[in-house]
């Protein structure tokens, strides 16, 4: 997919584990893993808002658009 999810990069920057994030945003680890591995088809605004709040970042820092070759 052309949308790259940089959640692992942001987690590393904030020195936070996936478990910690899942507790903060109240989303299961499996759902966050789906998002992190790029398997997710869609993301709710409420989820995005919660993640941005927990990681203290902008949506653009989590997602990146890359043209497919």
């Amino acid at each position, binding site marked *: 997919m052309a949308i790259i999810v940089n959640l692992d990069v942001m987690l590393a920057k904030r020195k936070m584990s996936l478990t910690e994030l899942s507790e903060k945003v109240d*989303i299961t680890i499996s*759902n*966050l893993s*789906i*998002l992190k591995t790029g*398997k*997710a*088809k*869609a*993301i*709710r605004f409420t*989820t995005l808002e919660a993640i941005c709040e927990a990681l203290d970042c902008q949506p653009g820092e989590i997602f990146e658009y890359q043209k497919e070759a």
Partner: protein
Amino acid sequence: MKIELHKDWTLAHFISYIAAITAVLLGIQLVIQIIMFRPVGMDFPVKFTVEHSDQPGSITRDGFIFLPGHQQEGRLIVTEAENRPGIHSFLLAIIKIIETGMFILCAFLVWRIFRHVARNQPFSRGNYKRLYVIGWIFIFAEIFAFGRAMYIEWLAFDAFAHDPFTLVRTTGDFSNLLIAGIVIIVIGYVFKEGHRIYEEQKLTV
């Protein structure tokens, strides 16, 4: 009024059990049909239309055609050609076995569909494919029944060749299963769309 669908899955359990029992019973019937296979005599319901030249209109009455052709009281008999003994009965017996086989497959697929519904997974990938198969089986069964009716009419045409005033037509409406088949295929499309939405929803974080 709040409707909670998940509480109604017991009905799906019940239908799946009925379908499983039907599949098993039809299976036993098929095995018996194959083991005891012989082109035995069969009655086929038909309508006889007799046109009288001296009276206006025609008379239609229900009757039976019995195959193969040995004499029997109270039935109109179609005799088989001398040089092909038993071939018509043999073909019709084979058709009956194939029909039973198709309906076993239908019962089996209905069991699988309702088992998934009972497990709260109505929009699984397999279900819409099963619905397509059932729909096509219904359509083919109708075409099969129509072909068999034409075959019997052809046999009757030979038998009544000497009587130009009698017309033999097989009974039965040949559109019911066809319409049911088409409706089931449409439901299959709906389930396919449901499966797509369900998968998307599952991967929405």
